[in-house]
Structure formats: C-alpha cells, structure tokens
C-alpha cells in the first residue's frame, strides 16, 4: 500500500505524463487545464478556453446552452428553433428536464418546433418563413410565450430574429422574444447560458406582478428538474415554510419567471449556467442570492440552515431543524448499508459546470474517494471561487454576448437595505452573493481536469483505476469497453432524482448497482485469449 506521499507524487507525475503525451504546443496548453490538489496548495486552473480542433471534446455549442439548458425547460412556452432540422431534433427531449402542466396549464416540452430552413431560406433569407412559423405555432399550440432561438446560419445570413419577434408579438398579442445563440459563438455551451439569461431579463423578468407576496418567498435558480430533482426538494422547502415563487427554469411557467423579482431571496444551485441572472437580479432588484447545494445529506442540511439563518426567523429555524432531524433519522440507516459496500471505492466526476462539485461531498459521505473531478465548460470561478473574477482577463466573449449591468430599477423597493444586507452577509460568514468553487473543498490527492478529452480519459482510467466513472453518454460506452462501470451524471442514466435526502439514497443505490454488478467479472472467458490487441 503506497504511502500518501508516494500516492501524491504519482499523481503529480501523472499530470506530466499526460502533458508529454501530446505534441509540445498542445501539451503546453493542456498543462494549464490540469492540476492536482496537494501538488500545488491552491491550484490555479485555466478554463473556458477555445476547444482544440480535432481533439475529441465533450463540449457542445451556444445553442445547446441557450435553448437546451436555460430556455428549453420553460414548459408553457414553445421554443421555435430558426434553422435547419438537426439542431431542434437533437435537442428534442434529449435533456431530462421534466415538467408537469399546472392545474389548467400547458406544457409543450414534448414538441420540437423548427423553421426547418431549406436552401432557399439560406440564399434568400428566412425571416418571412420565421414569421409564418410563429403564427402557426400560435394558432395551433397557443403557448404562453414563443421563444425563437438562432442556429449557425441565422447570424451569417443576417436574419433579424429580434425584429421578427417584436413584430410577431405586436401582431399576435402574446410574448415573443428571441435569443441570438448561434452555435459558433463562444467556445462551449457557456456563452449560450449568458445569452439566454440576458433574453429572460430583457423580455420576461418583471413583466408581471406577484399578487400575494409572503415573508418567505424564494426563487430557485439553476435547478432544471433533471430526473425530478426539483420535485424532490420542493416538499421539504414548503414544509419548512418557504413559498417558491419561481424556479429558473425547471418545471417553470413563463408567468412565474415574470413574477420573480418580488421574492425575498434567490437560492442558486447551478452557478455556471445562471449566475448571470442572479447577479442581474441583485443589480436590478436588490435581491440577493445564496449558493446552495441539495446533493448530499450534510450539504442539504447545511443549505437549509443557511437559508433559515438568512431569514433569521425563529419558527423557520425550528422547523428547519425538525425537518433535518426527521429526515436524517429516516435516511441514515438506509444509507449505511450502501456506505459499507462503497467504502474505499474510487469515483471520477466529469460533468458540465456544477455537478462535479455538488456530488463530491455525497460521494465522500458514502465512503468513496474522489480521485478526479472536472468540468466541460466551467469558468475559473467555478473551480477556484468568485474571488478570481476581478483578476480575470476579459476573453473575446464580449463580442458575442453583452455583459449587462442593470441599475436599480426606479420605483422598485428591494427587500433589504444595503446595511441590512451587509449585516446578514456577516452573519452568514460572507456566503451571500458568493461561491467558493469546487477546488477548496477537495482533498489532497485529487486530480482536476478542465475540458477532459477522450485521450486523457483513457489515460486517467488506466492509471488511476477508478471503480466508477461518472460522466455523460459520449464517454459511458468508451469507459465500459475498458471494463470500468460508468454512470451518466447529466441524465442520471434515466434515474434520479439525486437531490435532497431521498435523492442521496437513490444515488447510493445507483452507484452500488454500477460497482456491484457481477457482469464485469465475466470478461475473461474460460478459454483464455492470449492476444489482446488493444490500444489501452
């Protein structure tokens, strides 16, 4: 058994090994995106950089970030994709953001609507077709809003989707707005998130009044109800006494999104995709945000406590403790059996922009060791914390998306004065309006990789021998062919929810299922093949 010191050295060496496996220029580039906690006390990592052409990346495009992630889940809006058929088809329910129509309400998530641009539209322009398509969507489906998203050709041929949307809104008397999220913009899904947030702020937020405010109104940001994650935490929050005005954007109605500004607190799950909106809410409405994490028992408890502390209400805090006590008592014995089976197992987490952090403490609660964690499209602040934002050099992103800074809305009364806010923040240890990032909580001896590619996946699996690799569908089958179990952590492999107390149990069960299956043991047949001609 190698001593901790030797283990750590092995990892530091592994980083060098990966870097050297590339041609010099590529290696130098990748070296900035790979760190080992412990080799450097406070790792600094490069992130959100250009994807190298031809290096098999898992990243998607700005369209995926805007329409797929942020705008797609809005259930009573129709997302009309202006472009050729592929983009809408490949984002047609491929993400597991679930929704249920409200009483008497609508849901259009099962629809894939597109202008299906043809050559003639590319050559002569597609605005007329878009206008007609919007009318058709309105006539046939009667959604509460129509959101037009742009695909690659749109910006190139100069179709003015914003203007068409304005015209349509005027003509039809229903909200129609657009997102200029052409796929070639930016380096990943990330810029798409920002574009979508800007569009929501401009066209939806604050356009309706909250008729019946309560003292414990909250909005949940960065929660897309993947596999029912939102539905898993709502009962708990409501039991404590919160009222959820809106969720951005899981199981969301566009009307709820519109009424959000009058809440008292925004809680934030996925920092990467929607911190733009929480910041804009704070600027425009003085509405503060608090980073929470509902994945894991202790993390759920911590988040609930911090929320109650923010409000400083006795009864709220009592109910919080009661719920935590009750749930912990119920779940802990069940989790214990999984913990025994998962003790010492090594897990790797490579997900989009937040889950590689969120799932670490739960993994450790289950006795597992996180040997590698990384993000597809996160920025430096997701890794190192928001304090790095001030020092970060501006990328070329400003060319494709506006970083909007709102002034406080005239006539709008923020829930707290500035002094009250400062006081609350002090009481919360400075946690308001802040996110510490993934790295600070990580243990020494864990590898951090930004924009992990296929080649590096092979190396880290061979060298670090994880018991389970949690990533996405594009890696899953590669990893399984290598004889290592793999669970999808974007789609939850069609399982979930993983949030809250019950969710932790579901996650434990699924990971146990992956590592305990007898199937992998049958790899070597009784007639042994002596020749295994593999690259790995």
């Amino acid at each position: 058994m190698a001593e901790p010191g030797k283990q750590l050295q092995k990892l530091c060496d592994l980083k060098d090994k990966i870097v050297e496996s590339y041609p010099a220029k590529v290696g130098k580039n990748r070296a900035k995106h790979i760190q080992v906690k412990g080799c450097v006390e406070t790792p600094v990592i490069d992130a959100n950089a250009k994807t190298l052409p031809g290096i098999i990346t898992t990243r998607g495009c700005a369209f995926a970030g805007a329409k797929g992630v942020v705008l797609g889940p809005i259930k009573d809006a129709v997302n009309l994709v202006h472009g050729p058929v592929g983009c809408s088809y490949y984002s047609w329910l491929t993400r597991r953001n679930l929704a249920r129509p409200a009483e008497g309400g609508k849901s259009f998530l099962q629809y894939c609507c597109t202008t299906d641009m043809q050559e003639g539209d590319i050559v002569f322009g597609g605005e007329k077709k878009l206008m007609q398509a919007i009318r058709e969507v309105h006539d046939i489906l009667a959604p509460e809003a129509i959101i037009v998203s742009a695909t690659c050709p749109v910006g190139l041929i100069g179709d003015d989707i914003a203007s068409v949307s304005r015209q349509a809104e005027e003509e039809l008397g229903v909200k129609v707005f657009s997102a200029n999220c052409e796929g070639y913009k930016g380096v990943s899904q990330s810029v798409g998130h920002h574009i979508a947030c800007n569009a929501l702020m401009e066209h939806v937020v604050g356009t309706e009044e909250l008729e019946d405010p309560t003292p414990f109104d909250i909005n949940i940001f960065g929660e897309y109800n993947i596999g029912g994650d939102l539905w898993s935490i709502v009962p708990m929050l409501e039991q404590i006494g919160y009222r959820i005005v809106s969720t951005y954007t899981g199981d969301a109605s566009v009307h709820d999104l519109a009424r959000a500004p009058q809440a008292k607190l925004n809680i934030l799950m996925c920092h990467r995709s929607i911190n733009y909106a929480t910041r804009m809410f704070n600027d425009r409405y003085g509405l503060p945000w608090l980073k929470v994490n509902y994945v894991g028992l202790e993390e759920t408890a911590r988040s609930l406590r911090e929320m109650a502390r923010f409000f400083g209400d006795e009864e709220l805090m009592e109910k919080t403790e009661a719920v935590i006590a009750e749930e912990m008592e119920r779940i802990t014995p069940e989790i214990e059996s999984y913990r025994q089976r998962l003790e010492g197992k090594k897990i790797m987490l490579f997900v989009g922009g937040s889950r590689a952090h969120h799932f670490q403490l739960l993994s450790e609660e289950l006795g597992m060791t996180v040997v590698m964690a990384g993000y597809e499209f996160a920025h430096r602040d997701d890794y190192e914390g928001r304090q790095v934002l001030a020092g970060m050099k501006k990328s070329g992103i400003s060319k494709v998306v506006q970083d909007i800074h709102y002034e406080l809305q005239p006539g709008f009364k923020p829930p707290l004065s500035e002094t009250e806010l400062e006081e609350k923040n002090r009481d919360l240890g400075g946690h308001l309006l802040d996110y510490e990032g993934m790295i600070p909580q990580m243990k020494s001896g864990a590898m951090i990789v930004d924009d992990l590619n296929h080649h590096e996946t092979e190396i880290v699996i061979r060298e670090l021998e994880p018991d389970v690799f949690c990533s996405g569908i594009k890696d899953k089958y590669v990893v399984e062919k290598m004889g290592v179990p793999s669970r999808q952590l974007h789609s939850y492999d069609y399982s979930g929810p993983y949030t809250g107390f019950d969710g932790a149990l579901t996650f434990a069960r699924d990971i146990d299922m992956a590592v305990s299956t007898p199937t992998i043991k049958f790899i070597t047949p009784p007639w042994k093949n002596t020749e295994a001609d593999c690259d790995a």
Partner: protein
Amino acid sequence: MAKSSVSTTNACKLCRPLGACLAFRGIEGSMVLLHGSQGCSTYMRRYISGHFREPVDIASSALSETQAVYGGAANLKQGIRNVVAKYAPAVLGVATTCLTETIGDNIGMIIAELLEEEPELREIEIIPVSTPSYSGSHMDGFRDSCIAILERLAVPREKTGAINLFPGFISAADIRHLKEIMEDFKTPGIILPDISQTLDGVIDGGYRRIPPGGTSMPAIARTARSACSIEFNVVSPASQSAAALLESRHDIPGERLPIPIGIRNCDLFFQTLAKVTLQPVPARYKEERGRLLDAMVDAHKYLFGKKAVVYGDADFVLALTSFLIDVGVSPVVCATGDGNREFISRISQTAAVAGIQPLILKDTDFDEISERARETGSELLIGSSKGNHIARRLGIPLLRVGYPIHDRIGGQRLLHIGYRGTMNLLDQLTNMLIAREQDELGYGYSYM
C-alpha cells in the same frame, strides 16, 4: 401530399451530416471529422450512441465566430492533424455542416492545400463530402458519402466473381445476416458500408479507439471488379445510387431492389442473388420461406385488415409497407420525412396489389402524421421511438423498428431483412396486437 404548414413540428428526419457519420462508420479503420461548430459533432455523437449504445467518436473543427467570418481553413487543417495524430485512421471522412456550407468553405481545396503542406498525410485517405443540413435528410448524407467513398477508392482491374451489396442504412444484425446469406450462396460479397461490428461491438476487456470491423479498403477497391452490384435503394435518383455509379464508371451491372422485408421483396432479392451468383437458392432459405409462409398463415387472423401507420426513411417505409400488405395489414398512412415522387409511386404500386390506397406523406413531420393517424382511425404504428407520443395519445401500440430507438435496448440488433427478419417482425407485430387484446379482455384468458 406535403404538409400545409411551413414550420416543422416534431421532425421525421435527421440532418445530412449525421448520415455521413453513419456511412463512414461502416468503413474499416475510419474516423469522421465534421467541419463546423462543435455542437454538431457532440449532438450527433449523442444521437448515434443513444441508439447503438456504442462509443461514437466524431471530431470537430470547432469553428467559432472569427472563423465564421473569415473562413475555417486553419481550424480544419489543425483538426485533421490532431485526429490523425491520435487515431491514425486509414480513412478520414470530412463532412460539412450548415455553418461551413453557408460561409462557403471549399473543403476539397483546403484538404488539397493541407496535403501539399504535409505530404505524409497522403497515406491517409481523406475523403470530403458536402452535407449541408438545410437540404434533404440524413439519408442523403449517407448515400452521398457512399458515392464519395466509391469514387475515391474503387479501382478497376480484372473481373472477380464477387457481388457488391449496398444495403443502405439497415441494422447491424441485418448486415450480419447478409454476410451469412452470401456465404450460403458460396459467393464472395462486398458489403458497403458494414456497421455490423463497428456499431455493435463487444466487451472483451480490450478497448480500441477505432473499433474493429467495417468494409476494408482493399475490399472497397475491388468493388470496381465485381460481377454485379445489388443495392437496396429504389427511391433515390441515380446520382445517389452506388450501383448506378459503378455501372456508369466501370460497367458493372447493377440491380436496385427494395430492402428485402416482406415475402415479395425477399423473393425478389433471393431470385436476383440466384441469378447473379448462378447458384440455386440454398435449401436453408427455401425452408425459411416455407416457415415464414406458415407463420403468415398462423398470424393472418390477428392481422387482417388492421390499420397501420408506418413512418421512417423512404426506402424503409416502402419495404415495410410491402410487408404489411403481404400479411394482410392495411397501411393507411405511409410517411417519410424526406421522400420524392418515386417514393409516392412505389408505395402506390406495392399497395395496389391488395387494392389499398394509403395516404402517402412525404416531407412530413410527426405533427401531421399524428393528425392523419387519428383521422384514419389507425390501430397501430410501426417506426422509430419517435412515434411513442402518438402511440400514447391515441392509445395504440407501437412496433419499434429502424432508427432511432432510444427507449429500448437492442435497436442495433433488430433483424428486419430476409425471410428470417420478416418472420421476426411478423412475430413481434402479431404478439404486440395479441398482448393488447389480451389486456383489454380483462378475464385473464390465456388461449388467444
């Protein structure tokens, strides 16, 4: 009939570059790079992996806004270099996307420049294909890629007695069955593309970046020397026909047949094989035909007159329609997301045998299919997983065939073709209807 709306709601086709990715996957030692935004590669990998449950590596030139304005040549060259360095493919397919087609990147020229700059890359067959997604469907991309591959790699020499088989986009199990059939006909067959191993792989402890299998380059070269070609493609124009290409270029007689699903189409296929191989139809297939006929008689009473909606790729829909007519089912709606006039006339012809006039939809979407299914009182659906929401809405069963199947396992292992595949579909279709009836009966009877 084409749909009346300009918008497409719930599309019944995928985009052109995806077809290129599928076709190239049937070539041994191949990789594909999509010249465009990285979103395309990522989305298509996800969509192909979801059906086949296999690793699917598709590279991207990852263009961003600067290249969208000034052109993507530098990215494409770098992308090719990086893919070659990591994968050492024998063949690299380079397909375009709507982005690069719109900005007008000439990938043939860019590749030629790259080969001047780096002559060692000439060892690799880099084959460009134009696949703008704003025109046609994935099947156009598939067929165009096959044409491009043949144009590059087919080399005439002394004639062999082999038969070329261009099966189009059928399942891995279907391709394996074709191999079996050729063996039984004691005639070498060159199947292009061959996804039977590359998209239906094994777990044996070894991981290979480029999976084994696929039509080898020497075999592709030999297609220009074969005795004849058989192609499962009757709908598309000659410019998209591999058999027509080899006939005009290398004087190889070509037979364009419907996909052998259904007894009529299977008879035609086996008869053609017997003719071109100068072999009698092997006893095994005569027996399979007899068994199929027996099964068709057994199934007759459960199927006769049942109204079906069939949807999918044009050639596939045509073959399935034929099969349904053979067994007494009434196809009331035959729909495809692309299609042409040939599709319409062929469907009419095949259904005319039973005096049936289905509603034929081309360039359609599921919104329209759903409406017509309801209007015509359909009792069952046959096609991909995409029909699930129609099945639920109308309360009728769906037999999952073709692509994509993402809510069941084994989509790639579905056997559709030959007498054996036809029997498989017959059993599944019939039992699906029996199960439905049994559930509805309510008194738990178990003799059906």
